[in-house]
């Protein structure tokens, strides 16, 4: 963990056993602080809504004129427009100067005045009127699209939570929804804190993130569901342990997924907005970037720990926890933290293969092995991996085929002599 490369290698080999669910207080506190800061900022500063929400008219014309020149030109065309906000935008690449004039909402819909200003600005910039970009938004338009966006979000939340409820279960739906709300609050907070402009594009981008965030969460839950099938009857791991195991199992996937989603977005942001100066791409990219990051974070650090917290309240899982905690051989709860590799092989390899592992972790795994019944006997996975291909090719698997990672724990108890913990379970 100390060395990034080593950490990466362990991640790649599935040798991580981070305690995601157990440290929920830390994660919740971090998110709490960010959300709180966002809420305070939202209350104090509000949001920087774009013209689409407030209504108004914006012109952009390539011109080298000064702001004061532009102001007098605009005021000359339509008296009263001098109050408009006028700024100069410069493209960092081409050094092209653009004059941007923004007039308040009351002039929206007055096409004669709008075209008068357009003409004046075109003359000032010495370009044709078609080279003037005009955007005029009626005052009710913004509130309308906001309304539609909100309706879309609500419908989406209802449909998706219904789906998760059916496909998985109620508590997972709750945890996934909380993670979503978390993403909404964090993103909104960051927008308020930074003062980035919120445009309809931002809202769209935002809605997408909700889908994406859920997507990540669902992949994790899918694995949790698989791993916890029959958990209550095996009595070997607590629900929290299983969530941790599942998290570590999908960690590489989660990180890779988030990375492959964030990389193109970063490209949109960097190439599109900074270098080529397309503001449309910037608004999109920024919202997607913030949201995707938050979404990746929330599926790992919010949704899963919360699920564990919720499920541990169920009597059957509380029971397992109580029993395992009172079990002298089990030792600390940490001892049940399996690495994906260990869970996959069923037996934990000797710490030889993990030079970085030290102290507690290594010991954990040794004890972990004591926990998991090893039907494979003295099988040493690290060595066998080498033979696998050949063996698979011949089609003569001498040792009983090891069960895949996902199903490793529960089914094993089905087709083998019931292991020790199972008997305890029956005494219930």
């Amino acid at each position: 963990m100390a060395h990034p490369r080593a950490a990466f290698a362990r991640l790649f080999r599935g040798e991580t056993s981070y305690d995601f669910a157990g440290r929920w207080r830390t994660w919740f506190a971090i998110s709490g602080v960010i959300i709180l800061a966002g809420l305070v900022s939202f209350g104090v500063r509000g949001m920087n809504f774009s013209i689409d929400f407030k209504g108004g008219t914006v012109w952009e014309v390539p011109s080298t004129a000064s702001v004061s020149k532009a102001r007098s030109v605009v005021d000359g065309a339509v008296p009263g427009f001098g109050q408009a906000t006028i700024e100069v935008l410069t493209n960092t690449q081409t050094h092209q100067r653009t004059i941007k004039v923004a007039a308040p909402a009351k002039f929206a819909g007055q096409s004669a005045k709008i075209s008068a200003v357009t003409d004046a600005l075109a003359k000032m910039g010495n370009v044709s009127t078609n080279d003037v970009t005009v955007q005029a938004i009626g005052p009710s338009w913004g509130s309308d699209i906001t309304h539609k966006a909100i309706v879309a979000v609500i419908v989406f939340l209802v449909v998706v939570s219904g789906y998760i409820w059916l496909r998985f279960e109620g508590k997972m739906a709750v945890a996934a929804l909380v993670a979503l709300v978390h993403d909404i609050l964090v993103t909104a907070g960051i927008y308020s804190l930074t003062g980035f402009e919120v445009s309809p594009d931002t809202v769209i981008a935002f809605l997408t993130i909700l889908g994406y965030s859920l997507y990540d969460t669902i992949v994790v839950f899918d694995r949790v569901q698989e791993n916890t099938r029959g958990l209550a009857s095996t009595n070997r791991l607590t629900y929290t342990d299983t969530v941790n195991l599942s998290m570590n199992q999908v960690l590489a996937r989660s990180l890779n997924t988030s990375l492959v989603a964030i990389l193109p977005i970063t490209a949109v942001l960097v190439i599109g907005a900074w270098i080529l100066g397309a503001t449309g791409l910037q608004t999109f990219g920024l919202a997607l970037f913030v949201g995707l990051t938050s979404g990746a974070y929330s599926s790992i650090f919010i949704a899963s720990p919360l699920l564990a917290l919720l499920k541990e309240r169920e009597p059957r899982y509380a029971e397992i926890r109580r029993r395992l905690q009172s079990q002298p051989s089990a030792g600390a709860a940490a001892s049940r933290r399996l690495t994906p590799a260990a869970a996959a092989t069923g037996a934990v390899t000797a710490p030889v293969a993990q030079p970085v592992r030290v102290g507690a972790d290594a010991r954990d795994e040794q004890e972990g092995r004591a926990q998991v019944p090893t039907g494979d006997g003295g099988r040493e996975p690290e060595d066998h991996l080498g033979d696998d291909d050949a063996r698979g090719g011949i089609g003569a698997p001498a040792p009983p085929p090891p069960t895949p990672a996902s199903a490793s724990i529960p089914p094993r108890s089905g087709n083998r002599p019931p292991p020790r913990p199972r008997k305890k379970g029956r005494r219930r």
Partner: protein
Amino acid sequence: MRRGLVWSLVLIIGAAIVSLAVTVAVGATPLLGLDLRGGLSVVLRPQGHVTSGALTQSVSIIDRRVNGLGVSNSSVTRQGNDIVISLPGVKNSAQAFSQLGQTAQAFFRPVLCEIAPYAGGSSSSASPSSTVPSGGSTTPKAIGAAPDYRLDSAEMPASGLSPPSQATTPPTTSTPATTIVPSQSSGGSPVPVNSPPSQATCSASNSAQIPSTPVENDTSTSAVILPFYLSPSQSPRYVLGPADMSGSGVSTANVIVDQTGQYQVQLQFTGKGSSEFDKIASQRYPFYAQNKSNPPYQSLEAFELDGTVYSAPTIQAQSFNGTAVISGSTSAPFSYKQANDLAVAMKYGSLPLRFVPQSLQTVSATIGKDSLHAGIAAGIGGIVVVLLYMILYYRLLGLVVVFGLAVGGSLLYSIITGLSHSSYHLTLTLAGVVGIIVSVGITVDSYVVYFERLKDEVRAGRSIRQSVERSFNRAFRTVLTADLVAFMAALILWALTVGDVRGFAFMLGLSTILDVVTAYLFIRPMVIFVGRRRAFTEARYLGVARGLGARAATREA
């Protein structure tokens, strides 16, 4: 089994190659939205009470206006109650906008005369606000040709049975010619170059050079020159006096069939409309009674909607008592479409919707081009980075991703291009480009899910060969679930929002479906294939085993 895999590979790669080849060969490219090529987009919202029929009628009226502008690939669509107009690459956006934002208005007007179709070129300083594009200088039809329609009472549809004339002396003081009020009030828009039409226009030798009255100058108090709606550039135009009454006097209009099997339009007037119309009829009828075989213009009353004449029937009765029938001329009876167009125009002309522009956006062509280039550059840059990462991380399997994205990309491009040129007129907007870039993440994710599953299996001691098939089934379940959620998000976005969002959602949804298809038809057979070959699994740097972390395998095997 094995054969099935090969077939699905052949199928999808073949489909990708063929569709791309066809697209390229035809030379088709996706339609670009106006934020990528410049142009004008307007969202109009109706005010007051809105009925679906009125809205549909408004869309078709605006559609006609837009077509009159001669902008290619323009579109007028309904989104909820809003009407979204997009005019990519429009030349004069300010003028286009002023024409589009007008309220649909219907009037009954006296006919002064007919003049030749507009043949004025753009060479002269012709009015910039002409609604009629120059449609080639066909020889003008004889002025004074017999009017197309006649209007008689519902009770007596047969033309020979008009009521006996009572006022044989026409009320000369109120003939249309004398009541023309030359219009000075033209609603703030620039006054057209030509002076307001009057009786003098009828005798002007250059009548074909006089442009028709633009829609925004078509007010109730002005005299106007309007084309006939069916063929504005070919048939003679009407010179019309100020409105006698507005179209709101019509309460409803329907197509009926008379005894001889001809289509007719039956009108019902409102109470106020009925008395107004009877007043007009009592002025027009005497002219008809004078010369029934060749009724003079004074006996005609034109119905005009939104700058075009729908009908100019002869008034063949003095009083209508709230109901009238318009029939086609004996020489040219109504087709059903003609009758229906007229009925619809009269019905909805009576409840015109007033539209207020909600959002107007003009994008200069330069900025559009810049955005397009930025979008493409960003997309390519992003994809390259992602693919490099995939290859570094998964080695040969990463190359499968490269290949798979090429297949998926060709299909996506062909589909987008195909839909662009279908009746759906899909346009690719900046938001859509971002949607596609985002969907790269979704697509690559399917591979990651699969490969990580594969890793799990290999870790569990299974051979790569064994793992590839087993893990796909599990991974596919996850991919399906996740894609379903992404698709639902896209669908809901698409259904419940307006504007740019829809383009974004559309691309996202489309990519999601393609992702499922390529996952099953491409990724699965390809990975199984690669996983079976020793050459691929054990290659020194690119080997699958290396990508899956089964280092020991390569070393010790």
